[in-house]
């Protein structure tokens, strides 16, 4: 089949670059990576991108197609060709570009190292043989264990765009993998690393990481798991934790978010005084509800039922059997019949 791509080129030595269009012949089964190979082999050998396994396990070939992060080797081209699309291929976001589609993964691995990315074996009380662990206990970290560190989630992370120091979805998913490993002795010390500035509470919950992860790791869910453990351990003084609690309490009590309580309850009453000029501006802009008016949602019961439902779902998610990636939607509703 004939495939046309537009590729973002950039040569750091000449500082030249821009969109180039390439049309090549490829097999019907070709992935984006196969097509890039044809471009490199037959049209322009100076095109640079990373690749190795071509089977979605090494994590080398993360890049963007039409603005969304993909693994090139896991992206079949035929559907696009059939639709007559000419996709734009560009390097991943949130990471500095080295050349063409190659980004500097340095900042990515710096975050990885920052979360203490290895099992804390404690004082060395390991048994002679293996630890006795139930499969169900391991299942809690099997989704995170699928992560191939390709960087697709980091590429799409909204929070990182605003705060490049945010630990980010990949590193925090790795963190969850240790927090929920029954063998880990890291305890609160480990959790401290993920609490506070640039930690779990800085996630904006946009869910782009879940959306774009090519392996079904669901990094946002992992971040929620780490947050839950931090909360369970009583580490609730962090502004992020308090902020989250205001949302939950307020919606439970009133069915609404009480913006007037949000700031004082998050940062404390004294610190909130500093925010009065900002609050006045909000009042003038009509952004603050009348604090004297009764402030409750009409169907509070329904809101509370929703709250309970979400709470239960999250508990289930924590205990759930995570054995594999989520399948594409059209493939999903498959009864898990036990026909052995």
């Amino acid at each position, binding site marked *: 089949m004939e495939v046309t791509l537009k590729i973002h080129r950039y040569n750091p030595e000449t500082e030249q670059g821009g969109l180039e269009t390439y049309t090549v012949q490829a097999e019907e089964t070709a992935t984006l990576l196969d097509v890039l190979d044809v471009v490199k082999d037959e049209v322009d050998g100076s095109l640079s991108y990373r690749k190795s396994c071509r089977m979605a*396990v090494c994590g080398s070939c993360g890049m963007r197609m039409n603005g969304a992060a993909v693994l090139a080797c896991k992206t079949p081209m035929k559907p696009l060709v059939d639709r007559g699309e000419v996709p734009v291929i560009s390097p991943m976001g949130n990471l500095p570009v080295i050349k063409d589609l190659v980004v500097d993964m340095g900042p990515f691995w710096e975050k990885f190292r920052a979360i203490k990315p290895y099992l804390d074996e404690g004082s060395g009380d390991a048994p002679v043989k293996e630890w006795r662990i139930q499969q169900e206990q391991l299942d809690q970290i099997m989704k995170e264990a699928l992560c191939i560190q390709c960087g697709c989630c980091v590429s799409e992370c909204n929070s990182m765009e605003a705060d490049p120091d945010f630990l980010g979805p990949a590193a925090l998913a790795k963190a969850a993998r240790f927090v929920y490993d029954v063998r880990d002795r890291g305890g609160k010390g480990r959790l401290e690393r993920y609490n506070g500035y640039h930690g779990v509470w800085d996630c904006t919950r946009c869910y782009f990481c879940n959306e774009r992860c090519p392996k079904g790791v669901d990094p946002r869910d992992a971040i929620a798991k780490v947050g839950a453990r931090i909360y369970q351990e009583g580490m609730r003084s962090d502004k992020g934790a308090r902020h989250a609690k205001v949302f939950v309490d307020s919606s439970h009590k009133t069915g609404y978010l009480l913006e007037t309580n949000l700031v004082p309850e998050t940062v404390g009453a004294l610190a909130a005084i500093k925010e009065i000029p900002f609050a006045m501006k909000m009042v003038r802009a009509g952004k603050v509800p009348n604090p004297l008016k009764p402030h409750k949602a009409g169907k509070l019961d329904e809101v509370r039922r929703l709250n309970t439902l979400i709470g239960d779902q999250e508990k289930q998610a924590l205990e759930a059997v995570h054995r594999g990636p989520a*399948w594409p939607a059209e493939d999903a509703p498959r009864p898990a019949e036990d026909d052995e």
Partner: protein
Amino acid sequence: MVRHDVVVVGAGMAGMRAAIEAARYGADVGVVSKLHPTRSHSGAAEGGINAALGNAGEDSPDKHAFFTVKGSDYLGDQDAIQVMCEEGPGDIYELEHMGAVFSRTEDGRIAQRPFGAGGAPRTCYAADITGHVLLHVLYEQLVKSGVTVYEEWFALDLVVDGERCVGLTAWDLVRGGVQGVEARAVILATGGLGRIYRGTTNAYACTGDGMSMAWRAGVPLKDMEFMQFHPTTLKANGVLITEGCRGEGGYLRNGQGERFMFTYAPNAGELASRDVVSRAEQTEIDEGRGVDGCVLLDLTHLGAKRINERLHGSRELSLDYAGVDPIDEPIPVRPGAHYHMGGVDTDMWCRTAMPGLYAAGEAACVSVHGANRLGGNSLLETVVFGRRSGAAAAQEVRENGLGGVFPPAAVRVTERRIKSMLDLERGERPAALRQELADTMYDNVGIFRSAEKLELAKQRVGEMRERYARGLTIQDKGRTFNSDLIQAIELGSMLEMADCLVTGAIARTESRGAHSRLDFPERDDENWLRHTLTYYDNGDVGLDYKPVTITEHEPAVRSY
């Protein structure tokens, strides 16, 4: 110029395990790798890692050793095999203590399943992403150890002072430029060479660089003619579908729906050794009982639950690269070049013929796989001999002190070689030559071999080496991330290693393990129960031989 006591080249499982061990011994360790460590091809291993833990039935290291010897068609060195099988369980427990998420039995121990020709359920696994899980666990430990990693540095040439290896030169892929890497001991852990074959399961990175570096420096390679073809790979791009599928009870069927394996291996059926199963499949296909160049791997009777729990990775690969959901229909599969039993000749402590140079993993040949490797033994080899190489290198450094002197001219010599490659304006493009090599090897040095085809391959590889020597056109003239240059250098290694493989295969006039000669269909212990050594002979491939170590198991008829 950088300096370390021990420099490990390659950061897959063998390389990282070596680095971690050498650091434990107090050595200052550096790792040079053309890929970031977690991009290494060990991560693509799926099915598992063998060790006689006895968690799923009675087992022992001796039993493991016997079936490995038999699987090797008696070409494996029995002392080395014994060491691997005895030390294996300890290495598995260590990986588990590091955090590896091995799948579990009901009572919480490491689960084990049967693999081909193993004789017992001995393969420990983490669902069917075992290599991925272990590669990442070792990377975690590498980060913990504080070892310096030179990521995306492409190793070019070994540097030798007198007879001693004193380091290497490497191309810094991101910044461009040749770097000198001085070392008191060098460990090659650069993996295999599957990319010399069309339709291989191997990653693009598996181009035999380390073996080629050693060979060019005069270090003999061993048993290069033995290339394993994996029975279950996807038609379109050779992606591996794990032997674990058969270990979990999957069937192989031909186009008529028959489970044909019992014709070839009456007892073991689908779980015969890989050489036997691949030959059977190829025979079915050649005799017209295939389906579009494939046979069928049938998992449908296992049920959705079991497939999703234990083989979800295979299901994902099958959906992505064959458009087939194994829950509903069989996967079309064919044999594909998968694992190279040969490599740099080493002893049980991974020492090569060159002082100061070690090798481990697929780049090495100890030999524990002989003429045919058992599934699940390669990951085991990486951790057992990775560890041993790290320990041996660190101890040698401690005892021997300085070793030799890194000649300053070495970097300039390599620089000139690279510059002359970049400067050339006229010549072939590497891609066409690479494809021609892969086709030549697949068509003529495949599962079934003969003098006629092997001679043809030798002649063609020779011609291709000449064309390569005349020079290729590298279109990328820049220094920053010049993958065009790297691919051209890799092609040089591939051509040299293909020549070694073909030369060894022509000489070996018998059939043993994965080396199956139509013109010499029998195993010939009288003349060929010996290792092939291929060495650099003024650019050509020289041949020599050395005896196989036999301790307990006298060669016997091998049937499954």
